[in-house]
């Protein structure tokens, strides 16, 4: 005898099935599907074909997702009741598909596209990828040698990167705290893993993965703790609900402030802001360079996007409470990043510190919290978007060059070994010099316009002392970028000079694209800046 239990009690309220706007989410869904498909390929495709299939799948998927992003972007409507924002909140309030989201989707997809080309580079290691053949084999063991002998490769890196990409796309678009947390983890976990997969210097790589994971796990935990406190304050996870509560509630401020601070720890860790930056140099140095490039560009976009949405939409009403914290962090980040970079002797570490300094510059734009006026002046959101574009391409280009400057033991990241590169290969050294100048913010490179945009947004937002500090930090930063140029062009190589390996079309294409973008955005930044500007504000 069977009694369905539901009949015996009063009927529960019916639960509607959620409506999902698949069209608006299609870029995300495409990438997620490709990632899952990649897992299937690992399981079923013959080993010999996997690398080709995975590469094609990843690149094809990203291209399709890009097309979908453009389609979604063209279809954005003006949000009701808001003059600046375009787009809408979909998937039961979980995801906001608005101008900034779509812009960042396009951006991370582009970064992922060029990074995948770096992932696919196999010419530099004699027909093998830059990833270890057998991650589980202890470094230096017989098992490892055997894996090399059998020319085994980890083609899982492609689906892993795709999963990370899903996280990167979802993180800045998440419209409630839970989705945001899930996205944070989806973005982080594959990256932790990817960091430990370098083919050369494996101990360094594994150490970096472990550090990144441990510290990242801690800051994710803080983020989650912050979510709990904010939920306790607002009684809801939706950013809009939180905004309502922040504006209307007057008690429970301690809960809100502690929650904001805890969540800030989480996102600031991801962007590498001081004092949560310590992982950056170790991880950037240890991770396979292609992963570093992907991570440096993509994670920054995702994390800054989420930071903007979180602090502008949810905590916008409490900006007087969080801005002092951002001031301090921004100043610390710029100063520490710029000063510490001066002494670096390793190119990858130098780039890591430079990324810290740049995080500081972007934070200046965020801290300005300038929402724009009627005239065409640039807002915090659009300036940060533009800066991320600029920085991402230059960074990927710089790391791409790091992968091709090599000696017998792999990449030569010792700065002193780069002496005389200008003579060895004027084109490569010239491209690297261009990226350095862009990082330094010299006019006619994209870096100048980027800096100018964030500084002017911050200025309009009243954060002028920050701008002054930022310019001073730029001076210090410029000195070490220049030092690299001096080393490459004006220093005699000691012993045998560096050599530039001939990469496949993939890496060459990445470098060329990065150079073109860096110059183009320096000379005619108008269209991209307009695009960032027209991305407008966040929907609520």
């Amino acid at each position, binding site marked *: 005898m069977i009694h369905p239990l539901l009949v015996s009690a009063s009927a529960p309220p019916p639960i509607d099935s959620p409506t999902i706007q698949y069209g608006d989410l299609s870029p995300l869904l495409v990438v997620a599907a490709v990632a899952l498909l990649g897992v299937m390929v690992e399981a079923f495709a013959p080993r010999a074909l996997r690398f080709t299939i995975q590469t094609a799948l990843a690149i094809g998927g990203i291209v399709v997702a890009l097309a979908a992003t453009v389609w979604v972007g063209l279809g954005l409507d003006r949000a009701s009741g808001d003059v600046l924002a375009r787009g809408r909140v979909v998937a039961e309030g979980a995801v906001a598909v608005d101008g900034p989201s779509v812009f960042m989707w396009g951006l991370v997809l582009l970064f992922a596209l060029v990074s995948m080309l770096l992932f696919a580079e196999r010419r530099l290691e004699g027909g093998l990828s830059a990833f270890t053949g057998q991650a589980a084999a202890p470094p230096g063991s017989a098992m490892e040698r055997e894996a090399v002998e059998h020319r085994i490769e980890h083609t899982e890196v492609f689906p892993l990167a795709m999963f990370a990409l899903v996280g990167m796309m979802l993180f800045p678009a998440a419209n409630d705290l839970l989705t945001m947390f899930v996205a944070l983890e989806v973005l982080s976990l594959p990256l932790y893993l990817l960091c430990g997969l370098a083919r050369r210097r494996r101990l360094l790589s594994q150490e970096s993965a472990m550090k990144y994971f441990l510290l990242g796990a801690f800051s994710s935990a803080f983020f989650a703790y912050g979510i709990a406190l904010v939920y306790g304050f607002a009684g809801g996870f939706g950013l809009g609900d939180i905004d309502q509560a922040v504006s209307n509630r007057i008690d429970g401020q301690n809960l809100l402030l502690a929650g904001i601070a805890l969540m800030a720890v989480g996102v600031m860790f991801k962007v590498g802001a001081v004092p949560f930056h310590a992982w950056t140099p170790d991880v950037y140095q240890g991770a396979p360079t292609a992963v570093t490039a992907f991570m440096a560009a993509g994670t920054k976009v995702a994390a800054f996007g989420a930071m903007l949405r979180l602090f502008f939409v949810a905590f916008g009403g409490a900006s007087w409470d969080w801005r002092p914290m951002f001031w301090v962090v921004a100043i610390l980040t710029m100063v520490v990043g710029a000063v510490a970079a*001066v002494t670096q002797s390793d190119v990858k570490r130098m780039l890591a510190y430079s990324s810290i300094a740049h995080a500081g510059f972007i934070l200046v734009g965020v801290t300005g919290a300038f929402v724009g006026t009627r005239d065409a002046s640039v807002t915090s959101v659009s300036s940060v978007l533009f800066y991320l574009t600029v920085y991402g391409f230059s960074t990927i280009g710089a790391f791409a060059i790091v992968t091709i400057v090599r000696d017998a033991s792999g990449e030569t990241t010792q700065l002193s070994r780069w002496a005389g590169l200008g003579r060895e290969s004027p084109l490569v050294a010239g491209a690297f010099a261009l990226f350095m100048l862009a990082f330094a913010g010299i006019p006619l490179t994209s870096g*100048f316009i980027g800096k100018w945009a964030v500084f002017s947004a911050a200025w309009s937002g009243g954060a002028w002392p920050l701008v002054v500090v930022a310019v001073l930090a730029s001076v210090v930063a410029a000195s070490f970028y220049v030092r690299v140029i001096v080393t490459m062009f004006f220093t005699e190589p000691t012993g045998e000079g560096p050599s530039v390996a001939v990469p496949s079309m993939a890496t060459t294409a990445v470098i060329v694209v990065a150079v073109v973008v860096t110059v183009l955005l320096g000379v005619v930044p108008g269209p991209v800046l307009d695009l960032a500007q027209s991305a407008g504000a966040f929907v609520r």
Partner: protein
Amino acid sequence: MLLLVAIHLVAAAVAPALTRLMDRRAFLVLALVPAGSLAWILAQTSTVTGPDARAVEQVTPWVPALDLELAFSLGTLSWFLAVLVTGVGALVLVYCAWYFRPGDPEIWRFSAVLTGFAGSMLGLVLSEDFLLLFVFWELTTVFSYLLVGHNPERKANRRAAMNALIVTTFGGLAMLVGIIVLGQRVGTYRIADIVAAEPSGAAVTAAIALILVGAVSKSALVPFHFWLPGAMAAPTPVSAYLHAAAMVKAGIFLVALLAPAFADTPLWRPSLLVLGVLTMLVGGLRALRQHDVKLLLAYGTVSQLGFLMAIVGLGTRNAALAGVAMICAHALFKAALFMVVGIVDRSCGTRDLRQLTGLARRMPVLLVVTVLAAASMAGIPPLTGFVAKETVFAAFEEVARTGDGTGLPSWAGWLVLAGLVVGSLLTVAYSLRFVWGVFADKDGAELPREPDAIPAGFLAPAAVLAVLSLVVGFLGRPWTTLVEGYSTAFPAGEHEEYLALWHGFELPLLLSAVAVAGGVVLHLQRYRTEVLQAQFTRLPDAERGYQWGMRGVDRLAVEVTGATQRGSLPLYLGTIVLALVLVPGFALVRQFDGLGDVVAWQHPAQAVVAVIMAVAAIAAVRSRKRLKAVILVGVAGYGMAVMFVLHGAPDLGLTQVLVETVTLVIFLLVLRRLPAYFSDRPLTIARWWRVAIGVAAGVAVGGFALAASGARTLPPVSEAFAREAYDFGGGENVVNVTLVDIRAWDTMGELSVLVVAATGVASLIFLITGRTGRVRPDEAIDHPSRWLRAGRTLSEERRSVVFEIVTRLVFHMIMVFSLFLVFSGHNEPGGGFAGGLIAGLALMVRYLAGGRHELDEAAPVDAGHLLGLGLVIATLSALAPLAFGGEVLQSAVVDGTLPVLGYVKLVTSLFFDFGVYLVVVGLMLDVLRSLGGGIDRGAEAEAEDDDPSSVPDAAPAEGIS
């Protein structure tokens, strides 16, 4: 005008190809570019100069969103500068065609950079938008860096180039801040609008000060003067261009541009006059000390720049006239003199005046050119330099006598004038030193080699400039008219000055005479002055300050990195945690609004347990032994279980105890392979810091929890659970019903995660754990009749008979008990999770008593099968209600009377729970096989490696699966 600049840049782009095609003759073609620009600019003369001057403007939008536009304008001042930039530029390019040797491999780069440099300098003087001006300003910095570092083999060049770059970039960025302040203040970046607006206030003063820092550093004034002599490491044509018309003139140009609006800003005149005079004196004195004639000229430039800055910065109508005149004069003679040095250097192979001798006879034409230019520099009539200098003196005399609208006190005017006269005296002296040094016959001096003949084309540019120095001197009247477009921007003074060779016997003439006479005397006494100067070499030196600064930054960088970036994970984590304590902790304390209703304890025993837990936690942190730490952590965990029980949650308590036990055992299994101590090093201070940070973090997190629980505004959702668990879930154990019914979807997800995690753990720790196929009958076990058959595989000393027998006795009972928990879990404490853990513990006991072979005996199944089966059961039981028209995971009650057992009531979620049970058992089996058996096998394999004779049956080394 955009076109002019663009043509330069295009020419720079094609220059390398051009040099490849026609070698050094390419410079002649390139010279057409500035020459053509010059022609265009000259064609505008009547419009943009003179009393009715009107600027020619041209605006192209660039980045509208950032208010960046390509706005160019040609006014009187920029007309003068543009003429110099293009004219001298063209001559320098012509000069290059002879300066470089045929087939020089580096000129492809040089030609491009020099042309680009000329283009950006032209852009700078034509910019109407302040930001555009900054763009070109930085471009000239970069290009000049490349030019100065042209000869990269020499370390001195590299350092000089680096200095030039850092100093001017620093100045440029300071200027950028000033520009932004000014632009934001006025609301536009158009220079003409800003000058017209004449803003004032503290912010504007600061902005102007920053812009002046930029100008002063670019124009190599004290204290930034050291970069310019260093930069003369560049090829001579570059020096000629850089010192005469480009780069250093940018600062002067900027000051002249802003003077009409900002000369009355508080800082303006004092700083520019003091720095200008000081620079003039320092540069002059230094010039007298040099033996390298090029260096002599470089210091001469420093001196002249000080002079120029003082007059341009004065900001009166007379000063404006004098300033523009002096800029022109200086460009003409300085470019010519540098070209002379280049010619001498090229033909004689040396620039050392102690080696140069007898050139007057061998190079008479060159002597004439040099004398003309040097005389202009010294201010000898009737040359341009004299005319300009006279007017400068007159302008300052006016200020000293009447103030001339500057508000400067009379004494200050006289003091500056005196300084300038002394400076001029020095100028005369080093001019003489130059001419004497290059051409005079000297005893004991010997040329390194016989000088070559000078080609006419090589000499021509210098000759043109020298002749111009002479001719322009006679054109005082039209010259004055030309400048009026600029000078009328200043208020008219009492006394209108004009440019002329003869003003009558007035004070300026007297001063000029004094300067010339003094200079001649100083030159005649040159040995004595050299000795005197040698006494003062230890004077504080700006360059040393700069070096200190740079080294300081380096040092700071090393210290900061050393302190924060040791690669130590505890340090990194400590930093993050500290920030957590400080920032959110601060937020918590700041907004502290009372503890609310805090109940200390419901039962005194809770306090006792809390104390025990705290003590255990502290002791765990303090312990150096891993084992001790693990056990103490376990104590804290058991304490938690007791807390649950005391709070009236037996189910939670049970689960907590089980989890704690399993964790403890797993820890111990792993610890077998780890060193006994965390660290062999003695306790350090750092460790106490870590303890302190840990305590602080604990307090902070506790504080958050307290705040969170005190902030409740709505009734907790759990209040409704008890009722709904019974009504909808058909069970009395709320926890269990929550897991298998109310939140069954959650559990479903967790189950999948658990399966993945178990598989992951197993395959991560050991590539293989016997999961690839059926568990094989173990040939190591040969006594079928014994209890714990595999116990024989252990060595004697590891065996314990009592343990083995007890294990054998209780194992089945525990297994039955675990099943009991599953079945009773719906109403009593227990459930699939707890049951699974208990079964896992039973297996663990078997393993501990009999080793890894015993584990295979006890559970002759593949853990993967258990995991999969569990997942399948859970899924099927979740889907089953669909077949009966229900919803996924809906529960139903089956009851009835069974023959033996009597009345039985069964809730269908039991099947789901059974899936959970199997998954947990599978997980435990996996963990035991990998962390237990796997580690054992690793140890055996190692022992075998050490001693091949022992343990013959050890598993073969694993290959790649």
